[in-house]
């Protein structure tokens, strides 16, 4: 009797709320744990190649910054590489236990979990336990109203089988690949399943203040059934910026 009542309730809800369900389905097949693809070596993921190999995306091009910013960016990259070669890596936000934020958290350095719930897709990146909430069908946040956050403010919609996500409000200090950006930066992601195992994320960044043209690249993720995301709290950081020399140091004693 209880089962019949439950069935009736579900069927009634499905009928009455049919239009809502059609706009905001709970599951579109991206639920679960994912790791970066191509695979990143021992410890980073499952080490299990997909059943059907997929051509990996090309490397990310250098940011198409406006010339003056590009010159500055290249000089910083060169200086950082030179220091690193000498064993004196420059301070970084990661060294200070500051999370990557958007879009860096979507490169999936460590595995990530995607949770599809009614009206929301939540993404949890294991590294630094970073969380972003994508509000489906919500009114986009205007950049001037967006409180600066590491993950920004994300709204999303399904276009057929592609989840299109718009993100604004990323803190200016959260710099992906040392690339400067303004509070008017807009990140668009188009996530779709290439096959049952591979999820593609085409990322496009528009920021007229700093970028001469949109910056686009593709990331891919491989499904990792059964993987349980672990806790990662940056609890015992022994790295610090050497105040005199301005490079990374490890506190030994």
């Amino acid at each position, binding site marked *: 009797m209880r089962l019949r009542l439950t069935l009736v309730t579900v069927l009634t809800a499905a009928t009455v709320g049919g239009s809502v369900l059609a706009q905001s389905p709970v599951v579109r097949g991206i639920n679960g744990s994912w790791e970066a693809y191509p695979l*990143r*070596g*021992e*410890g*980073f*993921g499952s080490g299990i190649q997909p059943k059907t190999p997929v051509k990996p995306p090309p*490397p*990310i091009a250098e940011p198409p910054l406006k010339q003056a910013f590009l010159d500055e960016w290249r000089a910083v*990259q060169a200086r*950082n*590489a030179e220091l*690193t*070669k000498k*064993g*004196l*890596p420059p301070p*970084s936000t*990661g*060294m200070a*236990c500051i999370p*990557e934020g958007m879009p860096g958290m979507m*490169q999936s*350095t*460590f595995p990530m979990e995607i949770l599809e719930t009614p009206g929301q897709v939540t993404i949890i990146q*294991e*590294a*630094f336990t970073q969380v972003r909430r994508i509000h489906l069908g919500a009114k986009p946040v205007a950049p001037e109203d967006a409180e600066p956050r590491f993950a920004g403010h994300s709204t999303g919609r399904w276009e057929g089988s592609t989840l299109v996500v718009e993100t604004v409000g990323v803190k200016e200090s959260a710099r992906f*690949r*040392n690339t400067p950006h303004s509070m008017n930066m807009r990140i668009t992601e188009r996530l779709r399943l290439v096959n049952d195992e591979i999820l593609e994320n085409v990322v496009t960044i528009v920021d007229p203040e700093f970028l001469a043209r949109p910056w686009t690249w593709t990331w891919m993720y491989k499904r990792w059934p059964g993987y349980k995301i*672990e*806790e*990662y*709290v*940056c*609890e*015992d*950081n*022994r*790295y610090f910026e050497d105040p005199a020399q301005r490079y*990374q*140091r*490890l506190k*030994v*004693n």
Partner: protein
Amino acid sequence: MKMILPTLLVISVLSGGPVRAHHSFAPYESTLQIKLSGVVTEFRWVNPHVYIEIDAADEKTAEKRHWLIEGASTSILNRAGWKFNIIKPGDRITVIVSPLRNGEPAALLKQITLADGRKFSNGAAAGRATIQ
């Protein structure tokens, strides 16, 4: 193999695409690996990095020092087969490590051998042991 690992590290830095979540391993002498055997004084299973402290002697020089050995993050080590309680103070272990370039007694772990003979790596980012 000795040349491949440093080359990969440099490529990773230049391409701006590090796979480490926390920091660069450049302060360690990546082309040098040494073997230390000694007794664990502390085992810290924490993020961003797991640390093992040992009173150990360099197998070649017999010099005894108190070493801080840096491991990867806890989840990387779990995926490489470790467990949070795999080591305890008093355990005798052997490690293959790359020491800091500045001579301080700290080193990046490449491989650990526990008292019972089990061996574990420190994950792909730290690189493999090139000596045994």
